[in-house]
């Protein structure tokens, strides 16, 4: 099996459309260690041990989660010590600040050097800051209550995303999702 590049994925959808269920499937099948920034204490993650920010340094295998409101410290420790694994940012709206003062920026710069994959979840396309859009390889679209055209200016590969968005919207399955590639 050939080696792939590291991936940044955005999972977008309104609450209760199946985002966390989907991500928990991805987490189960992921081959390396996983760290979930579980700011909402999701029930589906309850069996994974909670670690302190200090323990990011020694987290070497399996799935763990962090419930800590000091995002700046957590993100800095991930950037320094988390190699070879997947980081899931649940409800990543809290990181949607200005890029210049955002610790996520460092994470996005270093992810390939540290062999990290990222999954960010958002409740709508509208809430995703452009600097995260720019770095994303894939967007998994669930149903959202918004007009995709409002975000046209910041979405790379807009026609592809818009087509997927409309297809999800038209689907009768409330858990419908489509994953599209926005960056090779």
């Amino acid at each position, binding site marked *: 099996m050939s080696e792939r590049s590291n991936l940044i994925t955005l999972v977008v959808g309104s609450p209760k459309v199946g985002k966390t269920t989907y991500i928990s499937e*991805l987490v189960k099948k992921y081959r390396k260690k996983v760290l979930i920034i579980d700011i909402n204490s999701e029930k589906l993650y309850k069996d994974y041990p909670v670690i302190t920010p200090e323990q990011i340094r020694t987290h070497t295998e399996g799935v763990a989660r962090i419930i800590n409101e000091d995002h700046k410290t957590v993100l800095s420790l991930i950037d320094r010590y988390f190699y070879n694994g997947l980081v899931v940012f649940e409800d990543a709206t809290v990181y949607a600040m200005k890029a210049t003062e955002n610790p996520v920026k460092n994470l996005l710069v270093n992810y390939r050097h*540290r*062999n990290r994959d990222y999954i960010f979840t958002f409740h709508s396309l509208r809430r995703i800051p452009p600097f995260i859009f720019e770095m994303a390889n894939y967007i998994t679209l669930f149903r959202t209550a918004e007009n995709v055209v409002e975000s046209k200016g910041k979405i790379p590969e807009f026609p592809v995303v818009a087509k997927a968005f409309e297809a999800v919207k038209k689907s009768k399955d409330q858990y419908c999702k489509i*994953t599209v590639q926005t960056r090779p």
Partner: protein
Amino acid sequence: METHDLLQELGKETEVKTPNPEIQAEMSAPAFDPNAQPPVNEVIPEAVQGAQAPPVEPEEMPIPPKESAKLFIEMLNGISTLFLPGIFKKKLTTPKQKEILEKLEASGKDDEFLQEYSEEEQRAALKKRDLIREAIRGVPFTEEEKTFLEDPLAKVIEKHGMKTSPEVMLVIALLTVAMPRVAVLFREP
């Protein structure tokens, strides 16, 4: 429209990266022990300079789960003691029984029947009053009950990583202490 299977994509292997020796050393260092004493003559290295220094802020010392559990139980006990008696009185008596009990209390003659109510009505009201008094006596947790609740609650707190800062604990403690005093305001004259 080309769609992709993330399960398949993320399942593929990636090139493993190794941290530089400095970070490797930090990663294999034992976990931080807040109670550890520095060895005698230890040379404390100067702060790491430049962009590589992690902006680690002083770690907050969380309250141990058992201490949190004790305080939460005390708070629950305080809230129950404050509000349950009023709720019992309100829910367990009819308006008429309440009226009878108030009049009896005002007259100071529990053992005499009031002319305007039937004997049966007054007996029922007094029976309800005894029931309420007994219920109120049973509201505060006994020491045994508190101990019984402590361990399971501490385990839940630990399992869910619920961290309570010392400031929040202080507020809870203050409220618990102040509650019996505030309770006076809720008592009927």
